[in-house]
């Protein structure tokens, strides 16, 4: 890819990330049953991927053969994708008003009936294996499209991921990139206190993946630079990008709270945060 770092682009992406953050809170205010904390940690990752020129997609034709495949394995933690997909034209922005309501196709956990979603998400540990199968299929057909999979660090406790991790390096799936939204908190508390991944990057590297680290997954500049480096890397192995993020980012009381996964934000706090009180 030929996207070079430039300051205007970073500024534009930062504005977009703030808009997506606002929209995500607005959706949560209307539908408090949504998992908001884990949807706030990957915002900058998705914004840079979708607006930064890393994904080749056509909102008007979601079956376009030449699209890059993006598999959002951490289903419930991708509420922030709704405003992004709507804004890009995958569906109408007005649909955002009816998330989780009667007749809407936008549920609390996204399904592949939503334009832009490739697979079934929500049940964790499925995206990487299916993504590896897609990457294998594309390679077998000598196609150049890329496969991106986004999962959470808690999700990596599912053993099916490790079957896919071994498989992807064995078959040199260089067209596969896994981005881990490393917010370090699972449903019942810090991942480290449940099953620690210890050094996740080293672990992946030991499994034969090319590793990249985003120190601050909420810095659009940091995310952009690393995605750029990774996309331009010609390694013959699959790539892992670990993005250190904060669950419930920038919401007082929610950010990095051990039980943030199951915590809803009070409507008046959302109003205050959005400057609408």
């Amino acid at each position, binding site marked *: 890819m030929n996207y070079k770092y430039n300051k205007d682009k970073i500024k534009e992406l930062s504005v977009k990330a703030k808009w997506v953050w606002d929209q995500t809170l607005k959706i949560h205010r209307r539908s408090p049953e949504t998992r908001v904390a884990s949807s706030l940690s990957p915002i900058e990752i998705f914004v840079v991927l979708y607006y930064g020129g890393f994904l080749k997609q056509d909102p008007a034709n979601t079956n376009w053969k030449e699209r890059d495949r993006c598999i959002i394995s951490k289903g419930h933690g991708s509420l922030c994708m709704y405003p992004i997909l709507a804004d890009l034209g995958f569906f109408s922005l007005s649909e955002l008003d009816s998330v989780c309501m009667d007749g809407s196709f936008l549920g609390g956990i996204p399904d592949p009936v939503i334009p832009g979603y490739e697979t079934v998400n929500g049940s964790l540990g499925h995206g990487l294996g299916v993504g590896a199968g897609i990457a*294998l299929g594309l390679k077998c057909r000598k196609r150049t499209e890329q496969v991106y999979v986004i999962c959470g660090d808690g999700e990596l406790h599912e053993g099916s991921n490790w079957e896919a991790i071994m498989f992807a390096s064995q078959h040199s799936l260089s067209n596969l990139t896994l981005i881990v939204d490393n917010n370090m908190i699972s449903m019942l508390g810090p991942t480290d206190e449940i099953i620690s991944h210890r050094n996740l990057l080293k672990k992946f590297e030991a499994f034969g993946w090319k590793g990249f680290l985003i120190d601050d997954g909420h810095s659009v500049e940091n995310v952009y630079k690393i995605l750029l480096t990774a996309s331009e890397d010609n390694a013959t192995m699959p790539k892992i990008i670990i993005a250190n993020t904060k669950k419930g980012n920038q919401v007082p009381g929610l950010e990095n709270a051990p039980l943030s996964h199951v915590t809803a934000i009070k409507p008046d706090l959302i109003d205050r945060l959005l400057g609408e009180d």
Partner: protein
Amino acid sequence: MTDIQKPRAMRDTFLEAVYDEMSKDNDVFFVTADFGSPVIDRIKLDFPSRFINVGIAEQNLINISAGLALEGFKVFSYAIAPFITMRCFEQIRVNLALLSEVRKLNVNLIGVGAGYSYVVSGPTHQCYEDITLMRSMPNMQVFSISDQVMASKILPCAINNNGPKYFRLDAQILPILEHKDNISVQDGFLFRRSTKGTICLLATGYMVHTALNVSEALSQNGIETSVIDIFNLTSFNQSKLIAHLSIYSGIVSMEEGFKGRGGLDAMLFNFLLQNNMSVKLLNIGVEGSYRFEVGSRESIHEKVGIGLNSVVEKVMYFNKNLKK
């Protein structure tokens, strides 16, 4: 190329049909979970770019297969029956059955080792729950194969159907059944023995062989029975089956799976109920629980109530009550 008249394991004739498809169609992909056969050696040798062994990793077997199918491949996924249906049940549910609601997924699961096929390997390798489990999911099609000829002929008919399918194959070499009628996937069943008796034995897989022996033994006792081999357990021709079954006063379901736990018997109970058929049903299936005894398939079958002698006895009693 394929000599289907020489007695062989049904997986071999089935896999030869897969080999033929692979040589005709570059979109056919074969994935195994470290389970082989001489035909697979040939597939690996002749189509190296469309063959992959994922290792002992059934969850990944299904996920890789789903991904390949999303890219338009017709995928064959191969493993021992209990492992390919139960170890990765949720992968099948989410990435095949559920996803095929909105995507075309031509994934063909081949499970070898139906029922007590792997008789000396014990309950981990035996498979008495798969019909229930695979039939429980909408969009999954289930085929239970009774002999090597059917195994060979069914594939070309089924492959062009875009949904996920499960082929339940026996691991042993079974006798070749007489094939008077063509195998129609749409019909999903065929007569193996047709008589003027009032009882019809409706069997699947290995139990078709038992049913024929039961029918023969009953005939010697003056009781005539017909035998239907039902091999499409999800989308058989209902009106045709109703028409055939309506002449009998008793039907006996025969499966090498747990009795009364949602398998062939449940399918038939539901079918008869839906169609207001008042015919009496006797269900023959594995009785009791898991067993660790070692023995021949025949002796185990007698112990769990599905052997020749046990079934003859049960059908004779059933016949006596029918007449009351």
